[in-house]
């Protein structure tokens, strides 16, 4: 990308915000409860998993609901962005066919929209988390930094997935199945230390394991993440962005005609 490209992209900042605003409008139009609906899904999951794991499976994690919320919201950001990105180019086929603009803006708008939803959910659930926990851990100051790194990671995934799904339409269904599997392979409703020692190394190959562990450190354990933790997260973020963007750039010239 040259300096001229950067300037051109800056000119389209308004477009990014228009697209995010469009998604918000379309989603919440006509419902008086508005964004409260978007809290319904995490709320339902929190209730179900709490009941299932605390009272039925009786998992050995103190204050399980706090632990769950710490990992579930960041997972939700990742999973809903990935799902939405698979259709983000297809639903905007009309725009892509008509006007030339930097195509990256569409998946970026999808990620930004989901980030806003996540922030809204955090605004509601984090305080309730501290009521349950009894205190506010100081390590929470790391939260914005970790979320920012995760957003870069999610953007990389969204770029790659959105472009690939135009060429391979069934990727949309594969993504859904894959996310369901990945959810159970990520230590969200259990602790990584509960995984048999021989399998732990394999679990750590999952980037979401790294992210969720750090979120649990700062919001549940009250442990500051190490420099090594940040290095791993940044590595995943930069790696995903480079790969995702490379895939996207390769397909970008042909998106309009393939749709």
């Amino acid at each position, binding site marked *: 990308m040259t300096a001229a490209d950067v300037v051109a992209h800056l*000119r*389209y900042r*308004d*477009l990014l*915000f*228009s*697209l995010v605003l*469009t998604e918000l*409008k*379309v989603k919440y*139009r006509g419902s008086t409860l508005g964004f409260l609906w978007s809290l319904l899904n995490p709320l339902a999951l929190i209730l179900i998993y709490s009941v299932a794991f605390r009272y039925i499976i009786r998992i050995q994690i103190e204050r399980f609901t706090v632990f769950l919320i710490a990992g579930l919201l960041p997972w939700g950001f990742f999973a809903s962005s990935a799902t939405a990105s698979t259709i983000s180019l297809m639903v905007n086929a*009309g*725009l*892509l*066919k*008509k*006007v*030339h*603009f930097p195509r990256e803006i569409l998946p970026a708008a999808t990620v930004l929209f989901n980030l806003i939803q996540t922030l809204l959910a955090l605004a509601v659930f984090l305080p309730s988390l501290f009521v349950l926990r009894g205190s506010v851990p100081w390590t929470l100051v790391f939260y914005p930094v970790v979320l920012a790194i995760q957003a870069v990671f999610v953007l990389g995934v969204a770029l790659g997935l959105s472009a690939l799904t135009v*060429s*391979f*339409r*069934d*990727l949309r269904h*594969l993504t859904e199945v894959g996310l369901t599997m990945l959810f159970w392979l990520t230590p969200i409703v259990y602790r990584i230390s509960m995984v048999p020692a021989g399998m732990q190394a394999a679990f750590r190959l999952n980037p979401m394991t790294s992210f969720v562990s750090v979120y649990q450190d700062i919001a549940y354990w009250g442990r500051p993440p190490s420099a090594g933790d940040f290095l791993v997260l940044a590595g995943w973020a930069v790696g995903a962005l480079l790969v995702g963007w490379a895939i996207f750039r390769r397909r970008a*010239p*042909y998106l*309009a*005609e393939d749709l």
Partner: protein
Amino acid sequence: MTPAIEVRNLWKRFVLRHNRAETLKSRIMGVFDSRLRERRETFWALQDVTLNVQPGETLGLIGPNGSGKSTLLRLIARTYYPTRGSVTVRGRVSPMLEIGVGFHQELTGQENIYLNGSLLGLSRRETERLYPAIVEFSELEDFIDVPVKNYSSGMHARLGFSIAAHLDPDVLLIDEALSVGDEGFQRKCQERMQQFRARGLTIMFVSHNLRTVAALCDRVCLLVHGKVEALGPVDAVVSRYQELTAVMTSGDGRMLGPELPSRSGETL
């Protein structure tokens, strides 16, 4: 003079997928069983097209269905990418490619005006300044807060043309856009286009209405099967097209129609 639009030796090849869209499944199964492999063929929608449009000139683009007119405009608008050759456009382009395309159906007319403004690279403030004129020209005041999905196709066209017409472009690309508007709106659009010509805009205009083409254009380009069949003064090119059409209707009737004119024969 440097041309405003410069198309040089432009070739465009499409991949035709005979079994719906490609899937990962078919790609993987195809490795094992060639019968499951998708039949893919390529064909040239444009072949060696070269043309210049001078600043301030209005070029008409005519030709039978499937001859490549819309493809050419999309390449100029840079939403399609050349297979070979090059397209150079000097100045701000305002595309008006097919009605309705580019509108978000769930949004109201007003919201779509703002969305389209930012799509075409305007800031919110610039669009705000143009907004009253756009609405007035479209005569859609009473429907501006209604979702676009409830518009008629003529209303789509009105909104689309009004937006494109007010963006203060240097180059205007118009594809079929006016044909669904009613008599009054079509006349208004033609007047507007005459104003644009007077103001020195460069216009490329695709239409099947030869009378409109004759009235508005300085030169005309006739595309047949993706090749430039004729390019020059309005009368000569239009009558050449009419001759070809006459041959078509008296002969076997398939000389010009949308067939695959030039399968490249390559199977990917």
